[in-house]
């Protein structure tokens, strides 16, 4: 305490003034059976009641020291006696998803294929695809009618998987040279890749049963029905080739569509495709525009009402994210990995550096 701190005196006087109090109710024994709206977590309760086992802290500290020493020794031995591991497994984070989506293991996909499962059975299998869920290498993303999901890969690539798609995260690795190699396999459906910043040496490609599209610094959409594959380039340059035709690669430019008829074919490049794909780019806006329309109208337009309801619910809970440049985003921070903050807004999902965020004003819903 600092009694000589005279500058504080006026504030001390203000603080000492009594607070206007409402008429607080008398004690009611019924409260003993009432559940709080906001309950303490088990951990918080233990901390508040001083039940956190202090001996355990010391034991944990001792264990940490032992592990560190052991780890250093093992690390030393490993460094001098064995080659470093070649890759480090990374994971993808779900930024945004609608209903009719699921994450499936390889075994589940095999089982569903063999059983000739219906779309409903595909949707019920596996685990729910929700914002913040991590998807591991080898796992599959399934989307049904009106289903969609956005995923962020560790390289910063954002992938939007649209309806009726089946996509596997074939490779999600970081090599010892710190380069990332990410490869997706689109068995059917559509996947739009937004590749904003790929570090030098990093590779990103999307394969289909018949074609390969590999890129850097671009956005493109791959679609396949299992035989014919199409790659539409929204922005940048993409190299496309048939899966079995390494010599037949062709560069596809912005607003062009490459069509690969089969694995051995040379891609056919069609220019000026913007009109054809405009609807897809505006899919979200279209869905918002018809919000409030009757169920029949929605069905007629191919928009699922439940998707719109989920979207409206989400919008009501959005927070305001104030950026340091003065701009403001209405959305939700769905995940944070190091300095990278994954934000979902009504229109899109994107990544910003944590240092760019000034403050988050939480929703009072």
């Amino acid at each position: 305490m600092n009694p000589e701190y005279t500058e504080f005196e006026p504030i001390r006087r203000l603080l000492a003034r009594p607070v206007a109090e409402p008429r607080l109710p008398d004690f009611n024994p019924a409260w003993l059976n009432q559940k709080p709206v906001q309950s303490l977590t088990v951990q918080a309760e233990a901390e508040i009641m001083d039940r956190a086992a202090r001996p355990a802290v010391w034991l944990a500290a001792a264990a940490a020291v032992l592990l560190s020493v052991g780890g250093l020794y093992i690390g030393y031995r490993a460094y001098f006696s064995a080659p470093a591991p070649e890759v480090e497994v990374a994971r993808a984070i779900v930024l945004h998803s609608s209903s009719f989506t699921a994450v499936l293991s390889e075994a589940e996909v095999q089982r569903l294929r063999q059983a000739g499962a219906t779309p409903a059975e595909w949707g019920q299998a596996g685990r729910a695809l929700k914002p913040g869920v991590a998807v591991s290498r080898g796992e599959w993303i399934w989307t049904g009618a009106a289903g969609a999901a956005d995923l962020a890969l560790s390289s910063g690539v954002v992938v939007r998987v649209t309806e009726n798609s089946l996509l596997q995260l074939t490779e999600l690795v970081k090599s010892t040279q710190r380069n990332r190699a990410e490869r997706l396999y689109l068995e059917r459906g559509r996947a739009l890749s937004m590749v904003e910043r790929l570090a030098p040496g990093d590779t990103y490609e999307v394969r289909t049963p018949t074609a390969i599209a590999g890129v850097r610094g671009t956005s493109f959409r791959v679609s396949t029905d299992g035989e014919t594959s199409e790659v539409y380039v929204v922005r940048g340059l993409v190299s496309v080739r048939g899966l079995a035709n390494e010599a037949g690669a062709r560069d596809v430019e912005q607003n062009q569509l490459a069509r690969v008829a089969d694995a051995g074919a040379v891609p056919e490049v069609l220019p000026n495709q913007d009109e054809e794909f405009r609807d897809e780019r505006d899919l979200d806006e279209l869905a918002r525009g018809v919000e409030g329309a009757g169920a029949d109208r929605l069905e007629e337009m191919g928009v699922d009402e439940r998707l719109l309801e989920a979207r409206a619910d989400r919008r009501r809970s959005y927070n305001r994210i104030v950026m340091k440049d003065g701009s403001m985003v209405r959305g939700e921070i769905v995940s944070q990995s190091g300095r990278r903050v994954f934000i979902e807004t009504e229109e899109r999902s994107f990544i910003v550096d944590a240092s760019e965020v000034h403050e988050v004003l939480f929703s009072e819903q």
Partner: protein
Amino acid sequence: MSEIEQRFARIYEDTRKDLYSYIIRSMREEHTAQDILQDVYLNFFRIFQQKSPPDDRQCRMYLFRIARNLMINHSRRFYIRHVDLVEGYDTGPAASGSGEPAPGVEDSVVDRMEAEEQEKILGELLGELEEEHRTALILRFQLDMRLEDIARVLQCSVSTASRTLQKAQQAVVRAGERRGLKPA
């Protein structure tokens, strides 16, 4: 009332005003403060329903710790009110008095305006502080808590509580200076 109910009733009567003062100064919004106050007691009752509550001083400290935890959580996520503990509470000026005799009408209006303005400024200054600093100032200068008790609420040593309080004073003075406030 059973024995435990009588004990809870006494704890509630002894602590509710101080707890409310702490919460309203921290949250600056009456309905939110009442919601949190309600949850503080409901959590406390839930914890000690099956076992005997400790002595009064310890209970008071637990209640302040619970309030602190709930307020921190509240700031992190939005809060939905389901239960209304303060039924029929009137937020109008008549209900806000502290029980003192009513002054003349003109004096009352001027005084009220001044008081409201000062309360608003104080709220803004406290709002700029870190939660730990704000809590330390309120407990010490509003509720007149001893340093030892402040340390128990903040779950730190007495010397740390003392340093926290000192830093809090400096921080709130700096916040005042940024707003052009000078010592009287």
